[in-house]
C-alpha cells in the first residue's frame, strides 16, 4: 500500500511537453491515478515523501536569471542594493538564491484578446500585468494594461503568479531588513545558448544578449 501510494503519486504528475495538434503541450495525469491519488493526499505529504521526482535538473535549457533589488526610503533614496544570486555568498546559499531567481524568470504567454471587451456598467475593465518593451528589444517594464489592449501583433508575456508573488515577498523581506519603504526589482535574464550555434557559420550575436525587466517599485 505504501509503495502503491508512492507510485500513484508519481503517475498523478502532469507530463510533457508532448507534441500535439495544437503544438507542444503539457498533459494531465491519467484519471485513474488522479482519482486514486486523491484518496490519501495527506499520507505522503505528512511523511514528506510526496514529490513526483520530476527533478528540475532533468529539464534541459534553463535560462540564466538574476535580479537586482534596490531598497528605497520614502523619498526614493536608495538605501541598499542587493544582487541575487550574490557572487560573494557561499555556494550552498548562492545555489538557493539561484533557485529564487529562477522563479522570477518564469513567464507565461498572455493570450491575445479575442475581441473588444467592454466593462459592465459601473465596473472597470479587467487589467493584466504584461512585460512592455521600453527600449526594444531587450529592456522591459512590467505594466498594467486593460485586457482588451494587450497587443495582438507580437507575443506578449507576463510573470507567472508564483514569480510575482515571490518578487513581492522578497521585497517585503528587504524592507524589513533595511527599513525601506519600497524595493525596485530588476530582472536580468539570458536565453539558453542552443547547441545548434556550434554548427552555424555565423552565430547571431544577439543570441548572447541580456534582457532586462523591471517589476517596478514594490511596496510591502
Amino acid at each position, binding site marked *: 500500500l505504501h509503495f502503491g501510494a508512492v507510485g500513484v503519486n508519481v503517475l498523478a504528475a502532469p507530463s510533457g511537453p508532448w507534441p500535439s495538434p495544437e503544438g507542444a503541450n503539457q498533459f494531465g495525469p491519467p484519471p485513474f491515478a488522479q482519482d486514486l491519488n486523491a484518496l490519501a493526499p495527506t499520507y505522503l*505529504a505528512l511523511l514528506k515523501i*510526496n*514529490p513526483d*521526482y520530476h527533478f528540475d*535538473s532533468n529539464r534541459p535549457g534553463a535560462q540564466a536569471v538574476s535580479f537586482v533589488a534596490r531598497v528605497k526610503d520614502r523619498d526614493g533614496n536608495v538605501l541598499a542594493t542587493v544582487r541575487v544570486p550574490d557572487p560573494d555568498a557561499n555556494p550552498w546559499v548562492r545555489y538557493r538564491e539561484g533557485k529564487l531567481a529562477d522563479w522570477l524568470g518564469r513567464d507565461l504567454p498572455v493570450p491575445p484578446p479575442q475581441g473588444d471587451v467592454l466593462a459592465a456598467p459601473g465596473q472597470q475593465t479587467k487589467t493584466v500585468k504584461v512585460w512592455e518593451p521600453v527600449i526594444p528589444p531587450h529592456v522591459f517594464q512590467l505594466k498594467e494594461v486593460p485586457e482588451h489592449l494587450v497587443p495582438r501583433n507580437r507575443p506578449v508575456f507576463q510573470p507567472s503568479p508564483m514569480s510575482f508573488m515571490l518578487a513581492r515577498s522578497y521585497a517585503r523581506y528587504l524592507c524589513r531588513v533595511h527599513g525601506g519603504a519600497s524595493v525596485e526589482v530588476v530582472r536580468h535574464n*539570458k536565453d539558453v545558448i542552443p547547441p545548434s550555434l556550434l554548427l552555424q557559420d555565423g552565430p547571431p550575436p544577439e543570441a548572447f544578449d541580456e534582457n532586462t525587466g523591471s517589476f517596478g517599485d514594490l511596496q510591502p
Partner: protein
Amino acid sequence: VSKLRPTTSAIKATPPARQAAAAGQADGAEGPAIALASSSWVRFWFTPVDPLGLHALRVLAGLLFLYWLVPFAGNVEALFGLGGWFDLQAYADLGRGIREAGGTLPVNWSVLFLCGTDPTALAVVYWLSLAVLVLFALGVLPRLTALLTWVVVASFVATPAILDDADRVLPILALYLLVGYVLLGQGTPGRPLPWRLLGPLWPFGRRAAEDPFWRRESVAANVALRLLQVHFALVMVVSGLHKLQFGDWWAGLALWYPLHPPAETHLSDVLALRPSAGPYLFLLSLASYAGIAWQLAFPVFAWRRGWCRVVLLGGAVLGWLSMAFVYGIPVFGPALVVFCLAYLTPAEWRRLTDPLTRLLRRRPAANNPARRGTAAGASALVTPRG
C-alpha cells in the same frame, strides 16, 4: 517484529513453500511459481541481517544532513523563516491562489513554523537541529535521535521557493532510517522500557559491545534497508523516464545546457569549440544516453553483486561529479552516493569497514597501549565488536 521474523534456516527451506511446490508439481507449473515468488518475497523483506549496513548508513546520512544544513548558518532567517524570502504573507497568497484555481492546498508542516517570525527562536531551533544530527551520526540514543532527525529534515524542506532536487530525496533517507531504528532490536526479550523507547545510550564502550542492539541480526534492519532500496530505485526510474519527456535528452544534447550556462558563455567560447564540434557532441550525447541508461536500468543492477557493484557505485560517483561540476548542485551528488551504498550487503560493508577498524585499533595501540580501549570505541561508531 519478532512474530514476523522467520529463522534463517526456515527462509532457506520454507516448509509451506516446499509443500506448495510439491503440490504444484502434481497440479501443474503454477504452484511452484507461486511458492517460489512467495518465498522470494519473504526472503527479500524479512530475512534477519547484520545491522552493520543500517549503522553505516546512519553515520553517512548524519554527515550528509550536516553537509546539507551547516552552510546555511547565518542565513537561516532569510531562507527558512516566516519573515524571510518566502514570508507568512506569501504562504497566504499561495494558498489563496491555489484555492482560486480550484486546487486543494497541499499539507505542509515544519517545526520552524512554530518559531513564527522570531529570528532568535529560529536560530535556537537551527542549532539544536545541528546538535540532533551530530548525535544521530554518533549513534547516541538512536531511536530518539532518528525520530528527531526525520523531524529536522522534514522541517527544513518546507519552503517552496528554494526547494531543490536534494530536498526531494533527503526525507526518504531520514524516514526509513527512522523506521529501522525504531524497530531495531524490539524483539529482544528482557530489555527495559527506556531502551525500547530511546535505544541504547551510545555505541561506545564495553556495554555497547555487549548490547544486542548494535550487532544482532535483525529483520527491522532488513525491512528499513529494503524500503530505502525499493523507494530509491523507483526514484531513479521515474527520473529517467522524466528525462525522456524532453527532446534534448533524446537528441543527446541535454548536457550541453548546464555545461554552457547562458550567464557564463560567450560567443568566443562557442567559436573555440567549433573545430571539435563533431567529437564534442558525440561525447556529450554518449554521456547523456549513458546517464539515462544507468537510471532506467537501475533496478536491474542495483541488487546484484560482482561487476554490477562497479556499475552501481561507479555510476553514483560519476553522478556526484556531474552534479557538482556540470550542474553546480551541491547536495544531490553526495546523496546519490549514500543512497547507492544502501544496496551493499552486510558482508560487503564488513569488507569495507574491517580495514578501518583494524587501522583505528592498531594506531593508538602503537602510540599508546593504554588508549586501546578508546580506539575500539571509535571503531564502534558504526558497530561495536565484542
